[in-house]
């Protein structure tokens, strides 16, 4: 039980495995936003991301008993989504990630700050799309999803030094783009 009184992930997993399928809804509600955000950054399309995450949740439900550490359910779910995104990208012929989810055009009544923010988001998204899938995945997991290197290693199966290398290069590429647009 966490501080808010909601059941913890291990408690929810135990309930689902005990036959309470409805309890899986709590897993979805708790983790969907972050997983869809991650998948969107990987695939460049929110629609594709939602599909990937839905399929991932279904797979997670079917294989929930194979989650060896329910306290690390979040990491386990990220791993499933990451693998699904990789499969999706492998089928795509070109490495470029389409940006069919450009940030919404700001209402002209919005302040200049909102317009500027929308432009900045577009710049950062474009820079991210130019990275290889491995570097993009590492950067998003580290700086957007807030995973530690240890968790990232569990998600990706890569060693921490390899992940650090990818994150470092992603930062350098992003910084170069930001400086070009400064």
């Amino acid at each position: 039980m966490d501080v808010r009184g909601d059941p913890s992930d291990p408690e929810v997993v135990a309930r689902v495995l005990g036959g309470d399928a409805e309890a899986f809804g709590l897993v979805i509600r708790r983790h969907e936003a972050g997983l869809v955000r991650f998948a969107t950054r990987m695939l460049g399309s929110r629609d594709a991301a939602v599909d990937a995450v839905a399929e991932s949740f279904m797979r997670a439900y079917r294989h929930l008993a194979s989650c060896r550490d329910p306290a690390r359910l979040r990491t386990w779910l990220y791993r499933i989504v990451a693998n699904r995104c990789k499969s999706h990208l492998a089928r795509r012929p070109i490495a470029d990630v389409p940006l069919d989810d450009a940030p919404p055009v700001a209402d002209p009544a919005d302040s200049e700050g909102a317009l500027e923010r929308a432009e900045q988001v577009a710049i950062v998204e474009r820079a991210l799309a130019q990275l290889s899938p491995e570097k993009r995945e590492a950067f998003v997991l580290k700086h957007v999803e807030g995973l530690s290197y240890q968790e990232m290693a569990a998600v990706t199966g890569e060693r921490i030094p390899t992940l650090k290398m990818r994150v470092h290069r992603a930062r350098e590429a992003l910084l170069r783009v930001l400086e070009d647009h400064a």
Partner: protein
Amino acid sequence: MRFVLLVLALLATPLAAQSVRDRLEGRVPAEAIPAVDSLVQVAAQENLPTEPLVQKALEGGAKQVVALRVVAAVQVSLTQLRDARDLLVRAGDLPPVTPGEVTTVAWALRRGLPAVVVGRIVGALPRPPRAAAVHAVADLVAHRFDPDSGADLIIDAIHQGLHEARLLDVSTAAIQELQRGRSHAEALALVRQELPNVPAAPKPTRAAVVRARRPPGQQPP
């Protein structure tokens, strides 16, 4: 029988010394070899491990350090081994102290662990090996955890049945909490709550194992 052993011991000493010189010849500045050899013999007489001294000399030779600095570095290493041995004895290990433990504690001191903290770890683990425990605390100290608090966490983990490499998983878990934005105190508290079920380090992937090669000269077991 005792006479035979005595003869063998008398023969072994110069043979061992010769093998040290053989290892150093051509790899360490020639003018450093006698002094290094002498330091190795002193270590052997004090029941200290000699391999770290030989390694330090070889390292100096490989890094093309001048003879004087090689000798100085080996001398420093000998002092560090003595300090480690003395710390182990003060913490309760009976002489002669295990060479591996002396090397381990010397590493801990070199990595910046205060002697009193190393002593606490040794006290918590009455029997070797302690390498993982001291490295785990040293990892925490390297990430600016308070040494005593870091030692407390690792000692708690030991008391909850974790040992050897699993202790490294404990320090890793605390460091990962730090990287997620927790304060040092929060990180320690969170990991303490999880004990003994901290996540284990992922095993190497099959692809990595397939790519692995043995260093030249290393025999498979």
